[in-house]
C-alpha cells in the first residue's frame, strides 16, 4: 500500500442547479520520500486537490489515505504551503513559525522550541528578517516563511500549492533551487502543485498533468529519471527533459484543450469620446457629451488559463 493514496476522488461545488464538478475520478499513489509534481492550468482544480489531501475539504466520492489512515481532518502531519502564503500579518516571521512549532512540539522546553524555530528561519535564509512582519517582506521572503513554517512542523508530507507562482522569474528560480536543496537534506514526501512544467520537471521525481476543468482528472504520470542534484543549465539541454516537457504539454493541450470552455459575452464600448488635450477646452459653452452612440459588441473568450 502506498504512503499517500487517492482512490476515485471527486469533488464539486455548488448545489443542484449551478453545480460543477471540479475534479473527477482522481487516482494517485505516492510512495514515501517521493517528490511528485502536478501541473495544470489555473482554475483546473489544483488547489481543490491539495485542500482535499490537506483535509481542509472533504471529497464527494472516493477515499484519501495517508499511511493507511483515512484523512478526515486537517492536521500538522501534513505541512501545507498555501498559494497565497497565509501568514498571519500581525505576527513577526519568528512568531508565525513559533506558533506552529509551539503547537506541534507542545511538550518541548521553550528554549528548544525557540532554537528549532531559529533553525528553520536560518534554513530559508531569513535570519535578518526574523522580527519583521509579513507586510514588510517581499513576496519571495513571505513564501520562504511559509515554507519554513511548514517544514518546522516536521510533517510526514509536504504539500506545496503553487508556492512560486506569484513571484518574478529570478526570485522564482532562486527559490526553486532552495526548495531542491532543502529537499535533498531530508527527502520528505512532497506534492508540488505548479503551473510551470519546467519547474515541475526540474524539481520532482515524477510529474503528472492535471487536465483542464471542469471535471479535471490526472493524466499519465511520467517518471523523471534524471540524476540529482540537477543543474538548471544542463537540464535545459538534456534531451530527456525536452521530451518529458513535450509529452506533458501535448497532454495538456490535447486532453485539456478539448475540454476548454468558451464564453461569449457582450461588450459595452464607452460612449464618450476621448478628450483632445491639445485643444484648450471651452468650459463655458461645451459640455463633454457622448459623441458616439453606445456600441455593443460580442466577444468570445476561450478559458484556458
Amino acid at each position: 500500500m502506498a504512503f499517500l493514496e487517492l482512490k476515485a476522488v471527486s469533488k464539486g461545488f455548488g448545489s443542484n442547479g449551478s453545480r460543477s464538478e471540479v475534479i473527477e475520478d482522481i487516482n494517485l499513489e505516492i510512495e514515501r520520500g517521493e517528490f511528485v509534481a502536478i501541473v495544470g492550468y489555473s482554475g483546473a482544480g489544483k488547489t481543490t486537490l491539495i485542500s482535499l489531501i490537506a483535509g481542509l475539504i472533504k471529497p464527494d466520492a472516493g477515499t484519501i489515505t495517508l499511511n493507511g489512515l483515512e484523512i478526515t481532518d486537517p492536521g500538522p502531519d501534513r505541512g501545507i504551503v498555501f498559494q497565497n502564503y497565509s501568514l498571519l500579518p500581525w505576527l513577526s516571521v519568528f512568531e508565525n513559525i513559533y506558533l506552529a512549532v509551539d503547537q506541534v512540539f507542545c511538550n518541548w522546553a521553550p528554549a528548544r522550541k525557540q532554537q528549532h524555530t531559529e533553525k528553520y528561519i536560518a534554513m530559508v535564509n531569513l535570519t535578518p528578517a526574523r522580527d519583521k512582519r509579513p507586510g514588510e517582506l517581499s513576496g519571495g521572503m513571505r513564501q520562504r516563511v511559509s515554507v519554513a513554517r511548514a517544514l518546522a512542523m516536521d510533517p510526514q508530507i509536504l504539500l506545496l500549492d503553487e508556492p512560486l507562482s506569484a513571484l518574478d522569474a529570478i526570485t522564482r528560480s532562486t527559490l526553486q533551487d532552495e526548495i531542491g536543496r532543502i529537499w535533498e537534506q531530508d527527502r520528505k514526501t512532497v506534492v508540488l502543485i505548479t503551473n510551470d512544467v519546467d519547474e515541475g520537471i526540474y524539481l520532482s521525481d515524477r510529474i503528472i498533468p492535471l487536465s483542464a476543468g471542469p471535471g479535471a482528472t490526472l493524466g499519465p504520470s511520467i517518471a523523471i529519471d534524471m540524476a540529482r542534484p540537477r543543474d538548471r543549465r544542463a537540464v535545459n539541454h538534456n534531451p530527456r527533459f525536452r521530451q518529458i516537457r513535450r509529452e506533458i504539454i501535448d497532454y495538456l493541450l490535447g486532453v485539456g484543450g478539448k475540454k476548454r470552455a468558451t464564453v461569449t459575452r457582450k461588450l459595452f464600448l464607452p460612449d464618450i469620446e476621448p478628450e483632445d488635450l491639445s485643444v484648450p477646452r471651452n468650459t463655458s459653452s461645451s459640455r463633454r457629451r457622448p459623441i458616439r452612440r453606445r456600441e455593443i459588441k460580442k466577444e468570445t473568450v476561450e478559458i484556458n488559463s
Partner: protein
Amino acid sequence: MITNRRSEFKLDWLILPLLGAVFVLLLWQIASTMWSKDLPGPLRTWNASKPYLVKPFEKRGELDQGILRFAWYSLLLVAKGYAIALLIGTPIGFMLGLSKFFAKSFDPIVQILRPVSPLAWLPLGLVLFQKSQPAAVFTIAICAMWPTVLNTAVGVRSIPQDYLNVARVLKLSRSKTLFKVLIPATLPYMFTGFRLSLGIAWLVIVAAEMLTGSPGVGGFLWQEYNALIYEHIILCILTIGVIGFILDRLMSLVERRFKS
C-alpha cells in the same frame, strides 16, 4: 514650489477653518440682534462664560463649578457606561459573527433594540436602579453597545478563510484560535466599533444628565436654562462639541494604529 505647497497647507489648516468660524460668528451675531433678542450674542456669551473657562476646575458651589469640572463628572459617567458597553458588546459581536445559530436567533432582536432612543431607555433604567447615576450608566451602556456589537460581528465574518485554515491545519485549540487568530484579525473592525460607540456614549450622557439633573455638562446646561442664563447654554454646547471631537480624534488615532 515648496513655499507654495506650504502656504497651501496653511490655507487648509488655518485660514479656511478660521474663515468658517468668523462666518458662523457673524451669523450668530446677526441672529441675536435681528431675530431673537433672547439669544445672547458672541460677546455676551464670552463675558458670561469667562469665570467658567478661566478657572475651569474651580468649585464655587454644588451648582456653580468650572466647566471642565462638570465635563469631568460627565466623562467619569461615560467611562463607566462605555466600559460596560464594550465588555458586553464585544463578546456578543463575536457570538453573532461566529455562530450562524446565534446570529439567526438574536439578529432580529438586535435590529429592533438598536434604533431605540436613549430617552426611551432612561426611564427603564430609573425603574430598574432607582437612582439617577446607575440609570444613566445603564442607558449609556445599552445605547453605546450596538456599533461595537455590529462591527465586531462584521469583522469576525470577514476574517479571510486563509487565517482560519492556518488555525485548522495547526489544530489550534479553541482559546488559542480565539486569541491568536480571531481577535487579532477582528481588531481593526472592533476599534471602528469602539470609536462609534464612544461617540454615542457622549451623546447619551448629555441627554441622561438633563433628564436626571445629575451634575455634569448636561445637568449644568439644563439648570442654566431653568435659571434663564442662556449664555451658559451656548458655553455647554461648545464644550460638549469640543470634548466629543477630541474623544473621536483620540479614538481614531488608536484605530489607525490597529489598522496598519
